[in-house]
């Protein structure tokens, strides 16, 4: 078993300070997830040795790659740390196999053999002689992965490995990458701005915002217990702002929503809070219908502002007046005759409602309303 990768890095970025600490061990890829410009790529660069942070320590097992206090900064070429670049950075004047052979060990023949074997493994042996310019996005991604792996990296970093792919290719590549990372006997850190990708690829997630890691855990934990409105929003939850009224023990907390309406939650809170609920936990009823006798404690009236159908699902934006979004089946949306302007009631359970204080999230932006509509 190879050793774990540990990194602690602080360095100024343009608008804020990157100060993050992470650890990854083989067999459990760490997905560093956060919005663009949060410092993810800089962090990878510092681990790979492509840039020198002001302060920090990076080590693989017992081997120190960087220690600013002790003046250690091993050059990138001697770290053996593979990096998959966001746009792959394939050498444009070399054929696919020469790209892959570039970092392989051994003599000419051994390197060529290793490259061809690696291309074979990725199912693109027939493209060995092609130049990167002649390859599709998906093929380029495989060549880049093959190139990184042919160098037998002791740790592997992936910077937005799927961002350069079109949607259809991405779905297939996601599955392949998941299998590949699971088999790899080296610590893996991958960076993505998509929570879904992180949830699928990462054994563990670390949410990074404005240079700081604000929450870590597995995807289910983070979705269930977001530490801040930012994390909740990022994980795909609807975030509504409001004021919580202290409730007697054993009673659900009531939150007066900004702009109108009330929501109830099993979480205890007082004062300004963010009410977080996932769109798939929200159901829609026609306005004015008698409330059914059920377990939904939250019923808020509003108007439909958008209906976006993707496949068999429909995402419905509702102004309550804060924007709430509900994910229902396309069939239900048709049955309810949903269209912008229609008055409806949104309902969800108090037990599916998280109350989150401003928490340790460093984001000073207003938690954005859940994205909706085209």
């Amino acid at each position, binding site marked *: 078993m190879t050793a774990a990768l540990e990194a602690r890095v602080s360095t100024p970025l343009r608008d804020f300070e990157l100060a993050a600490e992470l650890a990854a061990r083989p067999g459990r890829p760490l997905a560093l997830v956060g919005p663009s410009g949060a410092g993810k790529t800089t962090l990878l660069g510092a681990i*790979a040795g492509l840039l020198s942070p002001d302060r920090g320590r990076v080590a693989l097992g017992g081997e120190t790659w960087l220690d600013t206090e002790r003046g250690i900064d091993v050059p990138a*070429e001697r770290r053996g*740390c593979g990096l998959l*670049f966001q746009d792959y950075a394939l050498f444009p*004047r070399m054929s696919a196999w020469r790209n892959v052979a*570039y970092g392989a060990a051994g003599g000419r023949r051994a390197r060529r053999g290793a490259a061809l074997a690696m291309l074979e493994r990725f199912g693109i042996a027939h493209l060995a002689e092609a130049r990167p310019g002649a390859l599709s996005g998906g093929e380029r991604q495989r060549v880049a992965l093959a190139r*990184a792996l042919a*160098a037998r990296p002791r740790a592997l970093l992936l910077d937005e490995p799927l961002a350069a792919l079109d949607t259809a290719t991405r779905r297939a590549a996601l599955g392949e990458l998941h299998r590949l990372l699971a088999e790899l006997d080296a610590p893996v850190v991958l960076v993505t701005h998509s929570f879904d990708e992180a949830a699928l690829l990462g054994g563990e997630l670390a949410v990074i915002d404005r240079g700081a890691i604000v929450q870590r855990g597995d995807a289910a934990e983070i979705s269930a217990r977001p530490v801040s409105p930012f994390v909740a929003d990022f994980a795909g939850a609807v975030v509504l702002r409001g004021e919580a009224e202290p409730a007697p023990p054993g009673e659900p907390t009531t939150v007066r929503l900004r702009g109108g309406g009330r929501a109830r939650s099993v979480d205890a809170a007082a004062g300004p809070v963010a009410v977080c609920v996932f769109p798939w936990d929200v159901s829609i009823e026609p306005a004015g219908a008698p409330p059914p006798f059920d377990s939904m404690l939250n019923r808020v009236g509003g108007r439909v502002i958008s209906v976006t159908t993707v496949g068999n699902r429909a995402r419905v934006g509702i102004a309550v007046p804060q924007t709430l979004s509900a994910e229902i089946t396309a069939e239900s949306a048709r049955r309810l005759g949903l269209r912008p302007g229609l008055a409806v009631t949104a309902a969800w359970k108090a037990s599916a409602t998280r109350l989150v204080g401003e928490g340790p999230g460093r984001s000073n932006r207003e938690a954005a309303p859940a994205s909706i509509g085209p």
Partner: protein
Amino acid sequence: MRRSSPFAWIALLAALAGLAFLLVPVVAVFADTGPGRLLDALGEPAAREALWLSLRTTTIAILVVIVVGTPAAYLIAGREFRGRALVLTAIELPLVMPPAVAGIALLAAFGPRGILGDAIEGAGVELVFQTAGVVVALVFVSAPFFLRSAISSFEAVDPRLLAAARTLGAGPFRAFATVALPSARGGLASGLALAWGRALGEFGATLLFAGSLQGVTRTAPLAIFADFSEPDGFVSALALSAVLILVSAALLLAVKLLGGERDLAGGGSR
């Protein structure tokens, strides 16, 4: 059919006139003499000596420029440092310096009474009236052409490619040789062609710094001038000129082909 605008006609006329103006003198060199007399004139030892000297000195000068200039340009292209703009300006200064001024400047620096004259003499090196002096003059005037082109083509190399090479275990030299050099190839080749052309035509700085001694410092351009100054020397001057035109054209073509045929067609190399 679409009618062309008057401007299109004017532009076409300007292009044709310009092209004719540039080509007529070149054609005239060959038309004025005729192949027989050209060959006769080249049979003279002085002419052959001058051509051979030009070939040797420019080759040595260009080799020096490449060997020293390529790593220097790579270094300057890849670094941000204080005074970088000043360095770039200093490199370009000889480009705009009149050749005669360059000759005087070289004398002031490396001549017998120049500021480094004693040191050079002490090292047992003679430059003035020596072939080595010609090479010094050629390097001085041609290096900026190569450096400028090399710096900008190294600057255009995608830094992520170099970073990728390093994460794959390539040290600075291997990354330079396998990634930066191939990417910059087109720009380096055109810089090389310009520098060689400039060296081949060098006249003023060579004359002032190294003199015009037949067989020692009298390169082809100096020989052309020497022939021209003789009462019946015009034909010899023409003959040498014709050869220089052919050599320059061949050089330009060869270097451009070396740098990738796309450059010849006028496209970028990236």
